[in-house]
């Protein structure tokens, strides 16, 4: 630190400049500017903060040393998913979003920020192709928010309160959605069968008071919903909206929900070119058909093409800006603010690099590796798959017959440098593979789990329990206390 205090981030701490500026405004000291802050509210002492590291080299050494305490998935073999996924991020993606021009821009107008408008319009357009839908928003915060907003849109459009939740939903996502919509909507849970929607049960509970049917595909356990069109038809028959929460990663090979009747498709773009970032890099998309009834309910910004004074030139601007809370405050649809634009640019670059063939190849690798991991793990005596559905990227294994708890497997494998997955129940483990998980990596997991099973068998014999009921339910209750679908808090 220098005396007087001069800091590289604050040029006008230079003493001569500070004096000149005070003179120019006719103030004796900066204290004058705080005339309106009552004396009683003045802090009157320095903030009690750690000693600063004003020299950049000292700051860098400190922060680097702190972060070096982490042990990342480069060093540990990870089969963790559950909302944040380890996909490869092409270098060009990081290069583009690291550009000062994108990284440090904010809310400029279409002229000086033409590049930002075009990049985000392209993001919308590229996502639209992947999803086969005509309207995609500038990203909102994350898939949680996108889903909460999508359901809210359905509520506003239909004027109804009931929402049928047809899939297994990530508990944290459910937590967010419920607290967000509970004033306006009532969530009702329809238990899944073999990990996907019980279409008959959903149909049975549909009525003209249902705002939306909410499907997640892949679901919390990675199960791909096979009967989306039937759900759509049933929902539409009573005027309800089919809201599909999804991860777009598979749509190079899988039929997009829009082609199976979905009205609103929403989810997260973290898989499309964003690092894991300890779960701190998510963006939410909401896609709808080009139907003003839907579009006008979207709270996010939508960038659109416009003509200019030069024939043939594309300009950009906000579509239906007056929808937004910028314009309407509490009369607007929810709100709009700083959200996740940079991640949208990243996802756009990702899709442009991947192209149709890249997304197809990726989808195939994911399906193949998922299936391979399922087969190899299920081949271990005492290990079974949690269900018979088609899975993409994630699936569960049931360890009941191996007399192993999911927690004990996690603890044992962590000691071997492996994060084998996320426990969902006492004996149920959610395993995730991506294109970053090679055959050799999977084989390593299988060998490690196999080793545990052998040892468990030796230690305890086999204490057989019903592997599909007790374990699962206990576990869910254990982990997701606040989100189990038993009590519907309602707001009077």
């Amino acid at each position: 630190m220098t005396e007087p205090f001069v800091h590289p981030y604050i040029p006008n701490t230079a003493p001569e400049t500070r004096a000149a500026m005070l003179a120019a405004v006719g103030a004796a000291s900066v204290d004058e500017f705080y005339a309106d802050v009552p004396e009683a509210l003045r802090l009157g002492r320095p903030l009690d903060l750690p000693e600063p590291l004003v020299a950049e080299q000292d700051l860098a050494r400190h922060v680097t040393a702190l972060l070096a305490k982490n042990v990342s998935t480069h060093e540990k073999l990870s089969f963790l998913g559950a909302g944040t996924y380890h996909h490869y991020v092409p270098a060009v993606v990081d290069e583009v979003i690291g550009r000062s021009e994108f990284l440090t821009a904010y809310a400029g107008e279409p002229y000086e920020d033409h590049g930002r408008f075009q990049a985000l319009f392209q993001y919308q357009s590229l996502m639209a192709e992947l999803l086969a839908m005509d309207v995609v928003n500038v990203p909102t915060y994350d898939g949680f928010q996108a889903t909460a907003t999508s359901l809210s849109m359905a509520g506003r459009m239909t004027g109804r309160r009931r929402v049928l939740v047809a899939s297994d939903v990530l508990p944290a996502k459910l937590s967010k959605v419920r607290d967000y919509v509970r004033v306006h909507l009532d969530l009702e849970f329809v238990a899944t069968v073999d990990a996907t929607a019980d279409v008959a049960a959903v149909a049975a509970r549909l009525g003209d008071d249902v705002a939306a049917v909410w499907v997640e595909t892949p679901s919390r356990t990675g199960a791909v919903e096979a009967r989306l069109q039937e759900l759509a038809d049933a929902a539409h028959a009573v005027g309800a909206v089919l809201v599909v929460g999804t991860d777009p990663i598979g749509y190079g090979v899988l039929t997009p929900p829009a082609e199976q009747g979905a009205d609103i498709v929403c989810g997260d773009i973290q898989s499309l070119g964003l690092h894991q970032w300890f779960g701190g890099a998510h963006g939410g998309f909401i896609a709808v058909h080009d139907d003003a009834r839907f579009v006008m309910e979207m709270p996010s910004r939508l960038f659109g093409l416009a003509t200019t004074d030069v024939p043939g030139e594309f300009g950009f601007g906000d579509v239906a800006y007056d929808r937004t809370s910028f314009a309407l405050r509490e009369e607007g649809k929810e709100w709009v603010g700083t959200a996740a634009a940079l991640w949208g640019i990243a996802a756009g670059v990702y899709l442009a690099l991947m192209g149709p063939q890249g997304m197809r190849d990726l989808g195939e690798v994911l399906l193949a590796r998922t299936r391979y991991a399922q087969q190899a793990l299920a081949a271990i005596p005492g290990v079974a798959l949690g269900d018979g559905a088609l899975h993409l990227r994630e699936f569960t294994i049931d360890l009941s017959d191996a007399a192993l708890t999911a927690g004990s497997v996690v603890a044992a494998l962590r000691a071997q440098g492996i994060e084998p997955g996320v426990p969902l129940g006492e004996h149920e483990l959610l395993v995730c593979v991506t294109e970053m998980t090679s055959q050799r990596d999977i084989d390593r997991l299988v060998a490690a789990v196999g080793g545990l099973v052998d040892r468990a068998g030796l230690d305890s014999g086999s204490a057989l329990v019903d592997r599909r009921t007790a374990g699962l339910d206990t576990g869910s209750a254990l982990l997701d206390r606040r989100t189990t679908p038993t009590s519907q808090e309602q707001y009077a």
Partner: protein
Amino acid sequence: WDEPIIFELSTPGERGVLVTPVEPGVRAAVGDVVGDLPDGLRRSAPPALPELGQMRVLKHYLRLSQENLGADLNVDVGQGTCTMKYAPKVNDQLIATPDLTALHPLQDPDDAQGVLEIIWQTERMLAEISGMDRVSLHTQGGSAAIWANIAMIRAFHEANGEGAQRREVITTIFSHPSNAAAAKAAGYEVITLHPDPDGYPDLAALRAALSPRTAAIMVTNPEDTGIYNPAITEWVDAAHAVGALASYDQANANGILGITRARDAGFDVCHFNIHKTFGTPHGSGGPGTGANAVSEALAPFLPGPRVEREGDRFVVREAGERSIGSVGPFFGVVPNIVRAYAWIMALGAEGLRAVAETAVLNNNYLMTKVLEIPGASAPYATGRRRIEQVRYSWQELFEETGITSEEIGVRASDFGMHYWTSHHPYVVPQPFTLEPTESYSMAELDEYAAVLAEIAREAREEPETVRSAPHRQTVHHTHHDDLDDPERWAITWRAYRRKYFGAGAVGGAGSGDAAADEVAA
């Protein structure tokens, strides 16, 4: 550059990046997984994404970047309320380590001690800065933090059995509109107060509006006018007197760091826009990060999961029974949290105070310069100092020349400067809001004021130059009328092609073919 839309650049067969192949051993075990997909689940036509070599994708986006005006490139004082400050490059560099980028949030907390410590420490530092007891960094932006404020308030009243009774939220017109919008989204009726004739928040009006129906007051201070509410304690006390909570939108905290604190004025809950006040880059519109700081009474309602310290270790605890739950995935926008930690650590207590003092010095200096421009004015509180920003008006110039603030803003872009025009509601006529923050030198502030003075001169002497702007941008005067017409708006390339050329009405093949046509042409 006049860079085409990326679909126009597509050439069949080109590849931008390749995916790792399926290993023969996997292939042998699983067979043709795509071919084996059940009917209806196998995509019939590939998505019509463009096909480009890697360098062409890179070049395209680099050129687009050069058509953008980042805060690093201009004197970005025109985005008032947005606190465009220097986001130190060292912080971007520090977070780029795989020790952070490749960390999964569900890893063993023992393998995440560094990031957990940073989250915990940042919360503690923000608690000290706000005077509050507990802090959460879960939210993804300022408005999301406002949402969390009202969600906690709602949960608090519900926990006290007053959920049904307290149905109103009071805010002011110069508080950020998200306070009104979030309260509405949470189910509240919103009462908006206008200032007194001097532009100060109207305490009498507040007292008149408060009642046992009031759930909370949600106010910004200083407001977007740069005016600090000297009666803020009385506002909070009045709210408390009827059993309401007081929520402080600290989006405009940049001028008061180390000067005065939310809790000292009695607030129950407040939030910071980390991406504004604490120096993280704005990312073309996010990701941001919000911090929610609360009193002990509201602590049980904070979002989860929480990072806690146990001896020398940091552990993760699921949120408690009364928590509003997850407001987003996991721990919040981690890259920004680490940046904010580094920013605070680079400055310390003395540095934060220098930030605040310099931000207000810069603002009052710039105000002096701007008010020397004929036609510019600063409504309200005439002759008084402002905190960190000023909402100005071109009303006089408009009356004289017919040139609007929006036109001046567009023309400013020709000088490599700009200001944003979103100042809804237009309570101040022909508004523009300048917030110079602490990051700009005196010479740069002079330069900015000189640009405005020059445009004001043009407005008088050669108004057509202003009216027909921009003149030096990639694009030209853009027709925004299409954008409000559902029949004509084009939110995606596929919609554009469908609506304007009838291509690819359903499915993906249309625009891909079209792109191919153009290349062949």
